[in-house]
């Protein structure tokens, strides 16, 4: 292919008109406490995986919420399900259950095509 010196970049950003935000509703049915997450980041601050890799549970959760599923599965592989995050959450969010269920949901959907 001829190199024109520029390429068309994929639009970056969230379009809530097309994003699949219903998946989060299904997740919240399984883990109702997910709905009250404040996005404060205490969970990621305490997480050993976050402190040694670029994994961030809070962000994975939010991206899932916004229907941006790409890479979440790979990211979640870095979690050890140790539950430390759950101990510090000020809103009593069942973080571990969110991680566990997100993995199931992501396995069950062909999210790359959504």
């Amino acid at each position: 292919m001829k190199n024109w010196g520029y390429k068309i970049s994929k639009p970056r950003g969230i379009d809530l008109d097309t994003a699949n935000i219903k998946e989060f509703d299904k997740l919240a049915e399984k883990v109702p406490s997910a709905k009250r997450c404040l996005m404060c980041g205490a969970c990621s601050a305490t997480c050993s995986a976050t402190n040694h890799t670029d994994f961030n549970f809070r962000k994975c959760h939010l991206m899932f919420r916004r229907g941006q599923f790409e890479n979440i599965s790979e990211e979640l592989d870095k979690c050890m399900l140790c539950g430390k995050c759950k101990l510090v959450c000020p809103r009593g969010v069942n973080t571990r259950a969110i991680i566990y269920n997100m993995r199931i949901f992501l396995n069950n959907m062909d999210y790359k095509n959504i």
Partner: protein
Amino acid sequence: MEKERILIIGGGPAGLEAAYNLAENNYAVTIFEKDTEIGGNIKKWVKLFPDFGDAAEVRKNFKDKVTRQDIDIKTDISINELYSENGKWFAKNSSGNVYEGNAALLATGFETFNASRKEELGYGIYNNVITSVEFEQMYKTGKIITAEGKTPERIAFLNCVGSRDEKVGNHYCSRICCINAVKQAIEFKELVPDAEAYCFYMDMRMAGQFYEELYRKSQEKFGVTYIRGRISEAAGTIDNRIQIKSEDTLTGLPLKMTVDLLVLMVGIESSDSTTALAKQNEINGEYGFAKSVGLHGSDNLTKKEGLFLAGSCKRPLTLPETIADGRAAAIQIIEFLKLKVKN
């Protein structure tokens, strides 16, 4: 002996609460209200945060309290001039009538921000961009609908419109709009449970009793989605919906979406009468609000002898704070008048 008289400018909650307490203490009161009815800004509200108290009920209680012989309520009267001469206070209206009293209380309250000043948000351009005050008026009719009469499937609330914004010259936080957005989002979801409600915020300022609990409930029970980011622009679509753009700052990504109705949470600004009357008496503070002597202990006093302040003519206050401040002002006025008699 004839009772001493206090002139109260403004028939909102601060003025009414002060009037009642002064009358109970054997003083005569004249209230000047520019509207046809007393009640001030409560007149615009249906339910009050954070307990969904009935605003009409609160107004009725006030009316009952101040309907008495020693309180003279003058409605449809705007006071243009307020001044003192030889230890007396005078209030003059637009037709030149002058009223006399032994002390004066400025309780001229607030006005909401004129949202069309934020042109990029489309207020006054697109019919489906409304203010929180208009939401309230619509709520009074029992339903929330778009300009086309449709039930919204998606609604967004935008916080801090006219507050915390150097572009409009208001650096301060209006203090009531965050909790009001939570309240209105819940009210909307109660009416239309299947619809989506979003709230765009810079900080959720839940600094009041039961505010945080209500915020939490709005997420947990009503599924309101909060997005940290300020909407930078709103544009109409071909089908009269509103496309909004912001950053979802917690993902670090730009975000856009289309909503059926955009509600602007307008902030509190000084009312025109507050600004004018405060200026005449050289007690004008920042942003056009009136200035008290000091926050701690002398917040109802001004540097003008016999002129007092109550309520949100000083700064944005919640309703309970305003009522308490009206009562506090009454005590200060009584102290002042008693001391004057003694001397």
